[in-house]
């Protein structure tokens, strides 16, 4: 049986960030993930905003990690080579009542350590974002807000962790967690069992189950479901625009993305656990909300609608990041709902302290490399770089996804990296093939063929996403 110092349950953005943070120490670390790929839960059903941190109530766990996480994104993006744009944001007010809320937000943000917050008038609003509604009478300007591609962040962190020795075990749902003789954990998964001295619960929406299995805190989860809509590329990405928040939610936000799309995020309804369906009413509400902020938005240009559940611990409505008070050795990184993406690097920092408190010797590794060599993006390379790539391998010049200009070589690389893509959606999350306006209508069959070739399987064994999602069923006619 494999023995680890630390076993992290959950390969979402939080688990991957923690793995990356801890990989700098001389520790044996494993990440176990139930799905066949990392970043498959709430991480992929996310608007990608790096919220600045004025929103959480002061004194909460969220408040402690949000602003710090946002701050860390600059360095993480440089070291891990993922796209991050700190573009600033505005919370738009449409009435005097809204304006009073903005003032409250500004004070709250300052208490949370968010810098540069400023109330601005219509002229400055237009300067920051000419497409913002002319009806907005004032706004809270926040220079530190940014956006990322959330799965790129998780994948980058995972790749860097793997390169520094962290073991990733996918398709390994945890079935039982037992106590070992020395007080450690024996984690039984569908693939293998392993032992760990410290167990980190970063299981997202499954964190209550993991906590229960490990003998930790009892939690009841609420599935606060959100629908999100993605629009096609714009000539210039929009600055994130927020409505004045309500007590329940930040409201419908419109934002640009690192790839030039527009994202409208997110509705908030409590629904049955595991429900990732989109709903007609939610989509309508998103488009209506977005048009209120950006009246000229062309809602015909919807590329994709999706949904996910925020991992909300009922009654707490805050992150739970602490050493378990019930089970020594268990560290909770649980209830990571919004703003989970923004907070992830700071959650990882906080968990590092908690691991230290558990008494593990944190000896820095001499060979730790904080940098990840990011995959090459043909689309944004210069003409000279493109020419050099094709000379190296003609597959760099063979277009597969025309909407996002993804050549075959990028897809092959997405599969061969560690941990690499094993599904059509996994390829899409890594190199954007199929993410464009045609939604893989032109390239899906080619991506299936490339995956089958690289993974040495038949095309009918290539899943769209998880196991049990075959795209095709076998040859139509034999003998061809």
């Amino acid at each position, binding site marked *: 049986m494999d023995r680890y110092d630390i076993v992290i349950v959950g390969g979402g953005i939080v688990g991957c960030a923690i793995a990356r943070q801890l990989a700098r120490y001389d520790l044996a670390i494993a990440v176990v993930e139930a799905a066949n790929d990392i970043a498959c839960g709430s991480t992929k059903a996310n608007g990608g905003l790096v919220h600045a941190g004025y929103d959480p109530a002061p004194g909460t766990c969220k408040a402690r990690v949000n602003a710090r996480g946002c701050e860390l994104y600059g360095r993480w993006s440089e070291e891990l080579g993922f796209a991050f744009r700190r573009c600033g944001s505005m919370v738009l007010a449409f009435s005097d009542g809204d304006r009073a809320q903005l003032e409250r937000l500004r004070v709250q943000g300052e208490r949370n350590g968010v810098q540069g917050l400023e109330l601005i008038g219509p002229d400055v609003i237009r300067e920051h974002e000419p497409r913002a509604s002319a009806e907005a009478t004032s706004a809270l300007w926040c220079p530190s807000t940014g956006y990322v591609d959330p799965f790129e962040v998780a994948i980058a962190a995972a790749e860097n962790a793997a390169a520094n020795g962290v073991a990733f075990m996918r398709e390994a749902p945890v079935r039982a967690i037992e106590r070992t003789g020395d007080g450690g954990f024996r984690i039984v998964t569908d693939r293998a069992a392993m032992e760990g001295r410290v167990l980190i619960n970063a299981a997202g929406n499954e964190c209550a189950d993991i906590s229960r299995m490990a003998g930790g805190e009892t939690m009841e989860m609420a599935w606060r479901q959100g629908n999100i809509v993605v629009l096609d*590329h714009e000539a210039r990405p929009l600055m994130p625009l927020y409505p004045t928040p309500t007590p329940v939610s930040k409201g419908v936000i419109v934002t640009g993305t690192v790839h030039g799309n527009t994202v409208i995020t997110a509705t908030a309804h409590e629904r049955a656990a595991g429900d*990732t*369906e*989109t*709903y*007609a009413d*939610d*989509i309508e509400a998103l488009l209506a909300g977005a048009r209120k902020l950006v009246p000229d938005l062309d809602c*015909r240009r*919807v*590329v*994709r*609608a*999706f949904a996910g559940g925020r991992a909300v611990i009922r009654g707490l409505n805050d992150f739970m990041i602490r050493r378990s008070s019930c089970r020594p050795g268990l560290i909770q990184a649980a209830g990571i709902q919004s703003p989970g993406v923004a907070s992830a690097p700071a959650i990882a920092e906080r968990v590092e302290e908690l691991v230290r408190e558990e008494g593990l010797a944190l000896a820095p590794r001499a060979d730790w490399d904080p940098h990840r060599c990011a995959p090459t993006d*043909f689309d944004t390379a210069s*003409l*000279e770089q*493109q*020419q050099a790539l*094709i*000379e190296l391998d*003609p*597959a*760099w*010049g*063979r*277009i597969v996804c*025309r*909407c996002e*200009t993804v*050549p075959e070589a990028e897809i092959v690389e997405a599969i061969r990296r560690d941990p690499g893509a094993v599904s059509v959606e996994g390829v899409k999350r890594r190199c954007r093939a199929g993410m464009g*306006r*045609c*939604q*893989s*209508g*032109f390239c*899906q*069959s080619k991506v*299936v*063929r490339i995956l089958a070739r690289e993974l040495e399987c038949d*095309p*009918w064994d290539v*899943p*769209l*996403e*998880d*196991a*049990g*999602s*075959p*795209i*095709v*069923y*076998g*040859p*139509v*006619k034999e003998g*061809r």
Partner: protein
Amino acid sequence: MTEQAVLHTSATGGAVEEQVPSMECDVAVIGGGPAGMGAALAAERAGSQVLLIERNEHLGGILRQCIHPGFGLSHFKEELTGPEYAQRFIDQVKRTDIEVLTESMVIAIDREPDEAPGHLLTIMSPDGMRRVRCGSVVLAMGCRERTRSEIKIPGSRPAGVFTAGLAQRYLNIENLAPGHRAVILGSGDIGLIMARRLSLEGCEVEGVYELMPYANGLARNVKNCLEDFGIPLHLSCTVTRIIGRGRLEAVEISQVDDALKPISGTERTVPCDMLLLSVGLIPENELACAAGVQLDPRTRGAAVDDRLMTTVPGVFSCGNVLHVHDLADNVTAEAERAGAAAAAWAAERQRARQGGPGCASEPDADLEQVPLEVRPSGLAGYVVPARISDRSGCRLFFRVRKPVERGRIRITSGDVTLFEGKPRPFKPSCMESAPVTGRMLAEAHGEVTLSIEEITGGPCDDQIR
């Protein structure tokens, strides 16, 4: 054509020498489907040196997977399959001096910075990056299918939801079975063809569901593909929920009201492992937009003049990238006009260049009158072209937005009626055209409006619903 290392001005403004091969031609045609081949052949016949650029390994475009018959009836006066129709053109192309680049994708169209208006294409291919200088460009990139997200079907996102064309590719090109039991949403031609195709391959086709109260495809396809195979067509219905986690398990179908909104209480669940969407085609104009070409919001194709020239001088558009056609034969006819016009433009440019710096203005720009703007009205959903520059006459192509049993074409300019047609039926599935003559245009000022008016009170009125 010449290959050389060229000096060009980089985006940052400095001149850099690049080791990127460069070619020259008169007319560059982007897209090697029926439109591109038709345009290339016509330009070559007009005396141009032509380069035909195709993204895939082979010429033929989408026709390669359209293995059903019905092609060529008007162009070749015989019935061919899609690959046969394409092969006729491929053979013709091979017999000419047209240079063909396959596996080559144009990633940018730039105006050349020199005095003579020309275009600079940037192309990627497994052979490397390449630059092409040309006198004129024909856009013939075709169209793509509308997706599930664009029509906002709610529900889960399992495998088994395909656009009809993707399923057709799996079946006809890849020899891979996309499922066992299909529901088809949309009665567009690809959906109808696929209903028959799946039946022939032993798949069960539960039914075709259409949002509108009428079929969207050609009448002959409704008969040959559905009626002959006993596949039901359900009108005024849509899919309101996609059900299934990994793989599609069922769809929820609802009836819709007159405003096309689902009627609550009419939902029923239809088990299936495959949902095919045939819900419209959209011209693929992202490259054109990046080159500054203005689109007609109605067609989502370029706003062209009577020569099929876009708002960027020297850039022409034809086929499904201009507006979606119902027949490949009509694409060919339009493409031949675009190819000839692009050749004429390139020749004029060449003459202007040879005439010296004084003649380097845009060809015949001064000779033309102010173009007439062309607009649709009434039941006409769109009109191509969007402007008329040459007043000697042309044809106006259009579609109606809904079927009418008795409708009348009326072409007006201001208060003047230029033309009025006889009452007859019009269907959205059928692209129509009307000629405007030089005599009519002599009376036009500023704009020309083509309208289809429904004639009410006639004997056939009850049949409209």
